[in-house]
């Protein structure tokens, strides 16, 4: 084993260069009021911490969690049946089916956001095609509306929910179903007592993969016309306001929230079966 440990050196260098040092810089910046990145010139100050009691900050943090919470729940309800059907199906090529589900993930996020945004507006590609065959349907005016943002988030992150659930469902020993059958449980009871408990780990992984990027992301919400979320708040501090310190502090706070939640997941999940 020792011979291989040297192989981790590049990874460690990579991690410290691109993860640890930037976080250290963020922490230093959180205690300074410099414009731009000038970590050695600024003076120590706690002024940035005022933002933590700012109404707008609290509101946008709450709104972010609300949006991503709803999106995550929607993802679970959509992803679970899909994953279940694929895992239990007798397709010869289940991998291919999965590929089709994951395919949109391979195209650019920004492009997909723009495409969804244009679907929420009048004169979009669907309504203009329908108009050509004489169908005049009212357009969904969802740009900038909460429902639109949630639809965007769900469609963007759905594959991240399907994959882990599918993986755990696939791994379930088929003989367990037979045993449940033999013991007289009907299909529903088998699902509820056998399949579902065994697939919880996949759901937890999916929640982590969906909830966190939804809560902290910037591009999707902004691209769909919603600017009251925490991602935009951070962007504004690095953009128009040029208050890097405040932006850094807010990023750190979110980082702490995320780390804490992962820590809790780790505590609950002692066997480490969550696909982290």
């Amino acid at each position: 084993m020792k011979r291989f440990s040297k192989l981790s050196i590049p990874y460690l260098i990579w991690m410290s260069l691109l993860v640890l040092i930037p976080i250290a810089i963020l922490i230093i910046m959180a205690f300074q009021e410099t414009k731009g990145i000038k970590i050695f010139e600024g003076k120590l100050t706690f002024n940035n911490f005022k933002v933590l009691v700012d109404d707008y900050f609290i509101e946008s943090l709450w709104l972010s969690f609300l949006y991503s919470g709803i999106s995550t729940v929607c993802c679970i309800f959509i992803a679970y049946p899909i994953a279940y059907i694929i895992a239990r199906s007798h397709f010869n090529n289940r991998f291919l089916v999965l590929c089709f589900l994951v395919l949109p993930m391979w195209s650019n996020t920004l492009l997909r956001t723009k495409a969804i945004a244009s679907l929420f507006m009048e004169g979009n590609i669907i309504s203009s095609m329908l108009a050509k065959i004489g169908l005049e349907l009212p357009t969904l005016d969802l740009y900038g509306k909460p429902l639109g943002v949630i639809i965007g988030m769900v469609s963007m992150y759905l594959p991240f929910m399907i994959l882990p659930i599918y993986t755990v469902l696939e791994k379930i020993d088929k003989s367990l179903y037979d045993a449940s059958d033999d013991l007289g449980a009907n299909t529903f009871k088998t699902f509820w007592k056998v399949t579902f408990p065994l697939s919880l780990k996949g759901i937890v992984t999916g929640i982590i993969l969906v909830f966190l990027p939804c809560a902290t992301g910037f591009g999707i919400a902004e691209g769909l016309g919603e600017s009251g979320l925490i991602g935009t708040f951070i962007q504004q501090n690095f953009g128009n306001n040029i208050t890097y310190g405040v932006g850094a502090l807010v990023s750190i706070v979110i980082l702490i929230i995320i780390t804490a939640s992962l820590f809790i997941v780790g505590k609950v999940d002692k066997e480490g079966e969550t696909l982290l």
Partner: protein
Amino acid sequence: MKKVILCFSILFLSLVALTGCKKKPKLYLLNWNEYLNGDLVKKFEEQFDCKVVQLASESNEDMYTVISNGQYPVDIAIPSDYMIQKLANEKLLNQLDFSKMSNYQSDMFDENLANLRASYFEGNESYAVPYFWGTIGIMYNDRTPGLEEVIQQNGWDVFFDETLVDKNQVKMGMYNNPRDAIAVAELYLGYSLNTTNSDELTNVQNLLVKQNQTFDVKYAADDLKKWVAGGLNLDFAIVYSGDFFDQLYILEEDGSDQYINMYVPDNTNLYFDAMVIPTTSKNTDLAYEFINFMLDTDNIVENVSYVGYCPCTKLAIEALQNDEYYADLLEKYPVFYPGNTKNGEVYRDLGDDIYRRLTEIYNAGRNA
């Protein structure tokens, strides 16, 4: 041992190869998107045997952070008026040596622009050479009948007054950056665009909140002009004059019959973007050559065909007037020439505390 030698020789060879690429001098240009004709870049590169590295920026504040952080050895930046003031105040700009630019004459710029600059912060002429200038105005289409007359008679009021337009029918667009969104409200209320009075700013905030609660308002950047030109999703929006002409050229090229026009009320925001040499510059001589190159009338005219803003020099404007297409355009769309504006106000640098307040006002309005 052989392997080590092989590794070193590969490393050495690749270093040689890399330095071979570096021989050409590089000009780092910090510019807005689609704000420079690519043909001119090629021409400049050939003429001076150099490589122009274009750094794209989306806002003046972006430019500020790039320059003040010193991430790149920026040789030329093209920020707007108020950012030039801020950069100059913080001693991030070089004073220009005009003797190094053979095309430069102090009286070469359009009179109205020259007056504007003379009234601006002291010494601004010694830091910057104007690139383009423009105004903000109301771009509209003919989706809602009768709207054109209402806009031309009432100007900025159409953004806020529900007695003028049917709030269930019209859709309006606002720029998604604090300063321009707030400017619309300030122009409506008759305040200065540079006001720092807290009562006035509170009124602005209340007005923007009420606007968003009353009307169908969409906040966006480049999409605004596309949506107005699409003729379905917006009736009118605040746009920069250059954006309007950009879109007009596109519609003309596509042969579209969608009607769009732009109205600039008497009181509006006037701005000029200008070339500056930040203190980060390493290739200053090449930077001067670039400014000089961009002052050549033929080059300016070539750039105008791509950009959509009004040029700054008298000769270039004259050249446009003698061109059949542009003479027609100038007559049909007088807003092309910002000098026609009666009461234009330039943004000034207001200080960081006010910018934070402006973002607050903007957030309150946009998320209302």
